[in-house]
């Protein structure tokens, strides 16, 4: 027979985004406290609804284990008189610890010999322990935002109304007495506020299932995973009844699970008039305020949606009607904004940007648009796409115009998307509207990159300008502070260059972007982009040392560095490369310490060095040719061919010979080899620490 404990805290509606974390903290907090007390039990289980947090734990002993605790007292020299009898200090210590003087021992403490008492700490009844640790765990919970209520003496995520704490060996029959935020613990909770108001007595519950069942009877599904399953099942049924599928939306599903006490869904129908709106607008409108799931048929938005509700049924159809009414109202609002916006050319909206500040020290969005226009043309010409000049200039000029539209004012997440739609409807060329629509892609580390070349170019130019502008006024991210999300912007630049790909040299592009600001901050910007490229290479699966080896030699064309890194990654642990890495490390050390010498192969004497010089002589050109052709595997194989001769060189040749000219010639040979490698990778970074 083992002990069981149930804890439930009932309060007003907790924010959905705080619940998963609160459950975890509650479980981890209780587990840690039990562990501290030496109590073994099953892992506590955490549950929640929008109004409650609960814990269930079983396998608890009736008492905490008895322990022997060693308590250190005063130094032995103070506790005992020279004759070995106890001093008053020694007696006092024994008395304070409740042990007989004869039980005192002398032990070696960190500061010499001290007296010590072994105390027998008896076990405590579990309810007593629980009454102490549960309030401590609850008050240590961390929430993103807390509040006060009533007289204002307590702080928690929301006002607390009930605390249930029940203990028992067979069934839960004993209230564990304590209070939290002025609410004393008891044996009864409340049911679902609307469908089952009134008390639910929890004493007598025998197991977890019994507890969950009692709450279910009171209209509450306490188990979030069960709620998720019910939502999914219900959503599938409601969709298939009208021959549709649910458009997947994991974030919204997650939120639904945490928003309710009972997982209900209703299907609403949309007036087909709204289907003439762009799909992005329909989906965003429904999601934004109403948290509705969209149904689709053959990949197209269907005239239905699913709305969450906190009850199992909709007896009179009010919930469906209400949601349909609101969805209709919101879509009609969106429809209104959409048609208002369409009457207003993007050019006119763009003019309003003179009044919208980009940054206090950096002028308006109109100023930014001018800079981006110049930069994107420069990028396109450098990449050999001069013919895109016209569309890119138009796109850059209009790119931010939708910030002044009604629709984006209402739904900021549609920026870019709306601009693209309006540009298309207003008759701009595909190169123009695609660029506007795709300028914010990728949205994050995982999001898709632009599909169109103009979108890729505009996205890179816009972000490089943002980065250069902010770096020029010292807004450089440090530690966890990155208020302008510059890391994300820089990573997006690297991702587009690497994945689209664009053969743009990032250091060069960064200096162009920094030019309007007199080049201020350009060194920091280059270093920042290089760091993001390292992150990019690792995210593509390159081992850290390989990424470092490549980036130490070259950076700024992420697609090339990625391909080169991948070629290197397949070779770097072969015996030949391990040997090469070791030899090259010696080359770098020597050249670094002794200087670059002079390239003078005719002065070399030994066979080993002459052979090496011969092999190296023709390599420069060949490597250059292979790099241009991006034949990275062949280029690396060519370098790998130097492993053997280099080894022989270091075995047979004394570089630091007394003959100054010969020494310079030998160093010159090594320096040439170093330059060769550094066209590709600093393989010394691959040397395995031995």
């Amino acid at each position: 027979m083992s002990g069981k404990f149930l804890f439930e805290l009932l309060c007003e509606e907790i924010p959905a985004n705080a619940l998963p974390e609160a459950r975890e903290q509650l479980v981890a907090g209780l587990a840690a406290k039990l562990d501290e007390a030496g109590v073994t039990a099953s892992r506590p289980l955490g549950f929640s609804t929008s109004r409650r947090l609960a814990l269930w734990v079983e396998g608890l002993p009736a008492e905490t284990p008895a322990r022997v605790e060693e308590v250190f007292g005063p130094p032995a020299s103070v506790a005992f008189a020279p004759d070995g009898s106890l001093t008053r200090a020694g007696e006092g210590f024994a008395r304070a610890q409740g042990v007989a003087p004869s039980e005192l021992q002398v032990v070696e403490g960190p500061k010499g010999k001290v007296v010590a008492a072994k105390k027998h700490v008896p076990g405590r009844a579990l309810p007593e322990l629980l009454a102490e640790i549960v309030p401590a765990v609850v008050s240590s919970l961390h929430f993103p935002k807390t509040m006060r209520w009533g007289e204002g003496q307590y702080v928690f995520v929301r006002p607390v109304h009930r605390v249930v704490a029940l203990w028992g060996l067979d069934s839960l029959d004993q209230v564990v007495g304590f209070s939290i935020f002025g609410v004393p613990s008891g044996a009864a909770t409340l049911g679902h506020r609307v469908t089952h108001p009134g008390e639910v007595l929890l004493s007598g519950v025998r197991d977890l299932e019994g507890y969950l069942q009692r709450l279910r009877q009171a209209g509450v599904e306490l188990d979030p995973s069960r709620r998720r399953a019910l939502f999914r099942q219900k959503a599938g049924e409601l969709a298939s009844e009208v021959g549709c599928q649910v458009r997947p939306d994991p974030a919204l599903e997650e939120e639904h699970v945490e928003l309710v006490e009972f997982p209900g869904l209703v299907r609403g129908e949309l007036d087909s008039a709204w289907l003439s709106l762009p799909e992005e607008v329909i989906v965003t409108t429904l999601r934004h305020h109403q948290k509705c799931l969209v149904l689709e048929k053959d990949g197209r938005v269907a005239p239905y949606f699913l709305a969450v509700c906190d009850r199992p049924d909709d007896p009179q159809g009010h919930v469906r009607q209400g949601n349909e009414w609101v969805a209709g109202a919101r879509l009609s609002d969106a429809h209104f904004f959409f048609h208002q916006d369409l009457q207003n050319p993007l050019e006119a909206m763009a003019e309003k940007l003179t009044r919208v500040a980009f940054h206090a020290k950096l002028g308006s969005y109109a100023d930014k648009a001018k800079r981006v226009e110049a930069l994107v043309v420069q990028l396109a010409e450098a990449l050999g796409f001069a013919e895109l000049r016209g569309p890119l200039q138009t796109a850059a000029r209009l790119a931010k115009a939708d910030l002044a539209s009604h629709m984006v004012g209402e739904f900021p997440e549609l920026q870019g998307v709306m601009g693209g739609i309006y540009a298309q409807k207003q008759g701009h060329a595909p190169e123009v509207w695609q660029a506007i629509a795709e300028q914010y892609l990728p949205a994050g580390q995982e999001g898709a990159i632009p599909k169109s070349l103009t979108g890729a170019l505009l996205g890179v130019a816009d972000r490089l300008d943002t980065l250069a502008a902010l770096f020029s006024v010292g807004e450089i991210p440090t530690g966890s502070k990155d208020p302008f999300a510059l890391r994300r912007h820089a990573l997006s630049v690297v991702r587009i260059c690497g994945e689209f790909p664009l053969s743009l040299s990032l250091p060069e592009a960064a200096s162009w972007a920094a030019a309007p600001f007199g080049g201020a901050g350009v060194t920091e910007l280059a270093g920042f982009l290089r760091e993001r490229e390292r992150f990019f290479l690792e995210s593509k699966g390159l081992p850290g040392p390989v990424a470092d080896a490549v980036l130490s030699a070259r950076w700024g064309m992420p697609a090339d560095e990625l391909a080169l890194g991948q070629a290197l990654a397949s070779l770097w642990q072969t015996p030949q490369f391990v040997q090469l890495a070791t030899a090259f490390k010696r080359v770098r050390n020597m050249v670094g310490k002794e200087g670059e010498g002079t390239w003078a192969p005719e002065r070399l004497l030994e066979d080993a060095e002459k052979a090496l010089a011969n092999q190296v002589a023709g390599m420069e050109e060949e490597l250059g040719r292979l790099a241009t052709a991006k034949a990275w595997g062949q280029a690396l194989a060519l370098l790998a061919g130097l492993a053997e001769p280099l080894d022989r060189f270091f075995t047979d040749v004394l570089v630091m010979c007394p003959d100054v000219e010969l020494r310079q010639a030998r160093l010159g040979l090594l320096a040439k080899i170093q330059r060769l490698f550094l066209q590709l990778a600093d393989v010394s970074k691959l040397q395995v620490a031995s």
Partner: protein
Amino acid sequence: MELQAVILNLLRFWGEQGCLVQQPYDMEVGAGTMHPETFLRVLGPEPYRVAYVQPSRRPADARFGENPFRLGKHLQLQVILKPSPADVQELYLRSLQVLGIDPAVHDVRFEEDNWESPTLGAWGVGWQVLLDGMEITQFTYFQQAGGLDLKPISAEITYGLERIAMFLQRKTSIYEVEWVSGVPYGAVRHRDEVELSRYAFQQADVSMLRRHFEDWEREGFRCLEGDDPLVIPALEAALKMSHLFNLLDARGAVSTTERVAMIARVRKLAVATAKAYVEQRKRAGFPLLSGGAA
């Protein structure tokens, strides 16, 4: 239920809960919260309960009377319960029943939506209340007002009256809502919306508005000078500044950067006024503390 019945029923209900039924503040305000019966009364230790209807002006939300859901001036019904009682959510749900809304057949949900007023230096934690998916109320536990931490804490319940009437009457446009039987909202208010929109977006004299913003700022701080500051006139000056700012904003005359600075100027006066109010009440011995609560 007609709009007028919604108002009367709610005021009667809250009156029965011990609320003083107050009148709207006779000035332009952006929200019922700016009424001194809320902004000042939530400060300090004195208990208070009040309910009133407040026309709320948001010039930037005006739509020339063309949008069926947006108004530049709408009606809020504001309730303050100080300190917030333990059964405040239940009281609120009962208030819905006087509107004929039966929670047994509707879906009522409290969804996190915290409230903040940068111009008043005020913020609170709470929810928007959704009825069958429709937002009908903002429910807030005030934590700070005028930059001062509050104790006790007040619960603020704000009903959007046009929205609720629209919902109850199943109208697709605000202007079709029946104020009383046979008198549509549009017949009473549509022309005002058109004119106020035109004024806010096209006609308002920007340099005059800017001048008055500065004038009222000076005047407000002048009211707070001396040993016996004039709290209400100072608050009224802050409210005027706030409305002038909103008009300038609707007129497109405020840049993003300037915006932050102007809001900070209003807040500075609001914060000074809040402080002066608390001191004034303290000097008077917090008269409502001794059982004289409304």
